[in-house]
């Protein structure tokens, strides 16, 4: 076997906010750093973030990192690790001000300080009243962040490998990580990127669901690569959903539409929210609305040929009101649902938005397996689980996560690289050969399954059996079904076997990553018999001992899914912060 090898101090897979922040740390320390990305760095999915990044700067009114920490622990429904959450909230003002110095064009107050706006879940004085904590650059916060970090990396001589796809992790016999196998898209040539330290910053995997707000690129490659290399995935049952995305497309319809008088209807045309929330009706909270929608669909009252969505009706509103107050929504509906909402209702469905789980790390970005760091392996951003988001993420804490843990993992890598032997050890060949065999199977496969068919089967199964609101029997069936889909994925074939920019091959390789995430999600969700944060089951009853179905006695623990045998193990939640007292368990209510 002769695979060319390129050698670096550090290799980073992913050029979104997390990967770029880490790379900057390493390059500015003078280390030879490679960053691989499937797309041009500034087109990473971070570009989609609009809302902002949180930090208790207190520029408009008093704020404190300890209050931010309280909100984050509560938001996580106490599944977040309190050491990591303290670390993140304390670091937040530093990393945000640093980003400002890197040239990030934050919105400003008249006195020149960073302007801060209120955001759901941000409170002062331990949940007392809303506080302005979100920092934004107009409605382009993610975009501006990527540009600032990318420019700075170019200056620091980070070496970018754009339109390269990492295929697999390389570990030696002791399990130490040696780098990655990667494919250059233009030629389909496969190389090994060997390094002293390797970081995964590959983002989320929202495309496992039929309805997702995530761009097509979010295929969970880092999770697939980690799982194949024997690294467990943590808390994969926790995904954040929005109640109303356009069915079949995923584009969000803001909650403002219901505020303007929009009504949800089932296949009989019934305004079903009257049954679930007699007072608030269509303006009930997000989880109540999502739950009602899923119950309607599940009980056979969904709309369309597959009875898989409900309708959001604004036809009773004055067309002039729709045109003046909801022009964006009308445009989205016409474009993505082929429906003019002045004339007909919009098909909608609860839609996946954010992945709370991921590769298990500590707050230093070190990947942790069996309570020990995996030598040479780091992860940060949406692919990682530190765990600061626990069972549910607070808005704007994700961009913060990228900055804080991108930086801390960069620092951990620098420390490690400095103590590592100067010469790289001989490359272990086993994982490289397995990776090549995976590509070769795709080239040889005939009479197999089409990639689009297998992907559609996976997405439909996840959406139906493991969506925003979950049912015991559906989950059990879902486990059997997703294992069937896995068999389909094992035989996927591609018609186009050419070598230059073969999109079909790339999509097949991505699907092999998505299926690992889908299995982890379904199996972890089936096992967790409580409701907590974003994981909500109809059989976890609301009782005085278990408010909202949360069962702290049995389930205050992190799930660890292992690919080998689909085994589940658990580890305790870190309840002890770094310097302050534990934020004690309480019922989560807003």
């Amino acid at each position: 076997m002769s695979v060319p090898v390129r050698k670096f101090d550090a290799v980073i897979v992913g050029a979104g906010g997390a990967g770029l922040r880490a790379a900057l740390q390493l390059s500015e320390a003078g280390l030879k750093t490679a960053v691989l990305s499937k797309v041009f760095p500034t087109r990473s999915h971070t570009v989609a973030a609009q809302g902002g990044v949180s930090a208790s700067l207190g520029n408009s009114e008093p704020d404190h990192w300890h209050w931010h920490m309280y909100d984050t622990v509560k938001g996580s429904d106490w599944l977040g690790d309190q050491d990591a959450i303290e670390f993140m909230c304390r670091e937040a003002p530093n990393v945000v001000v640093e980003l400002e110095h890197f040239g990030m064009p934050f919105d400003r107050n008249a006195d020149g300080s960073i302007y801060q706006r209120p955001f759901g879940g941000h409170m002062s004085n331990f949940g007392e009243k809303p506080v302005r904590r979100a920092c934004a650059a107009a409605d382009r916060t993610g975009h501006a962040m990527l540009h600032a970090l990318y420019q700075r990396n170019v200056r620091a001589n980070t070496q970018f490998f754009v339109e390269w796809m990492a295929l697999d992790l390389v570990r030696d016999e002791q399990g130490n990580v040696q780098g990655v196998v990667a494919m250059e898209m233009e030629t389909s040539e496969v190389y090994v990127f060997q390094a002293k330290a390797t970081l995964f910053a590959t983002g989320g995997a929202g495309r496992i669901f039929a309805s997702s707000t995530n761009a097509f690129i979010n295929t969970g490659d880092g999770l697939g690569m980690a799982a194949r290399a024997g690294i467990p995935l943590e808390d994969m049952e926790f995904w954040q959903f929005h109640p109303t995305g356009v069915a079949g497309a995923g584009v969000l319809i803001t909650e403002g539409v219901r505020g303007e008088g929009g009504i949800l209807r089932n296949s009989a045309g019934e305004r079903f929210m009257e049954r679930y929330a007699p007072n608030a009706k269509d303006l009930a909270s997000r989880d109540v609305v999502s739950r009602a929608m899923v119950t309607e669909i599940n009980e056979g009252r969904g709309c369309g040929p597959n009875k898989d969505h409900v309708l959001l009706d604004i036809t009773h509103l004055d067309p002039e009101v729709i045109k003046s107050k909801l022009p964006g929504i009308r445009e989205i509906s016409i474009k993505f649902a082929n429906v003019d909402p002045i004339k007909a209702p919009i098909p909608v469905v609860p839609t996946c938005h954010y992945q709370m789980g991921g590769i298990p790390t500590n707050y230093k970005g070190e990947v942790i397996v069996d309570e020990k760091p995996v030598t040479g392996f780091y992860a940060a951003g949406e692919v990682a689980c530190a765990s600061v988001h626990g069972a549910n993420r607070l808005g704007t804490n994700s961009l913060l996560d990228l900055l804080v843990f991108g930086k801390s993992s960069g620092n951990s890598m620098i420390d490690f690289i400095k103590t590592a032997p100067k010469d790289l050890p001989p490359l272990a060949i086993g994982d490289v050969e397995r990776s090549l065999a995976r590509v070769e199977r795709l080239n040889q496969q005939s009479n197999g399954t089409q990639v689009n068919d297998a992907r559609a089967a996976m997405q439909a199964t996840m959406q139906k059996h493991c969506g925003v609101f979950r049912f015991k029997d559906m989950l059990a069936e879902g486990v059997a079904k997703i294992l069937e889909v896995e068999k389909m994925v094992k035989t996927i074939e591609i018609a186009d076997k050419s070598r230059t920019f073969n999109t079909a091959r790339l999509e097949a390789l991505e699907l092999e990553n998505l299926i690992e995430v889908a299995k982890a999600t379904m199996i972890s969700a089936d096992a967790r018999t409580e409701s907590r944060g974003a994981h909500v089951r109809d059989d976890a009853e609301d009782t005085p001992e278990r408010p909202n179905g949360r069962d702290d006695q049995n389930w205050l623990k992190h799930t660890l899914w292992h690919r080998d045998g689909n085994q589940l193990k658990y580890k305790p939640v870190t309840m002890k912060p770094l310097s302050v007292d534990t934020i004690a368990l309480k019922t989560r209510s807003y």
Partner: protein
Amino acid sequence: MEEVELKRILWRSRRGLLELDLQLERFVAEVLPTLSEAELALYGDVLLLPDQDFLAYVNGAVACPNARLVPMIERIRAAQR
């Protein structure tokens, strides 16, 4: 146009924003095969736009200031009707 260039364009039609992915998917399937060499090259240039600007032009929220790119933006918009 060489095959490699055409395929590079296909890959670059994958963006950081879902709304662009969906609109370009339609455009690539329905219109791309009918484009001339020169038009393909122009589409390749359009793909170099930053995602947030690109989406604003395609949605018609903002007029594209680069007159050379406007005809191609209009064709992408037309493919959505």
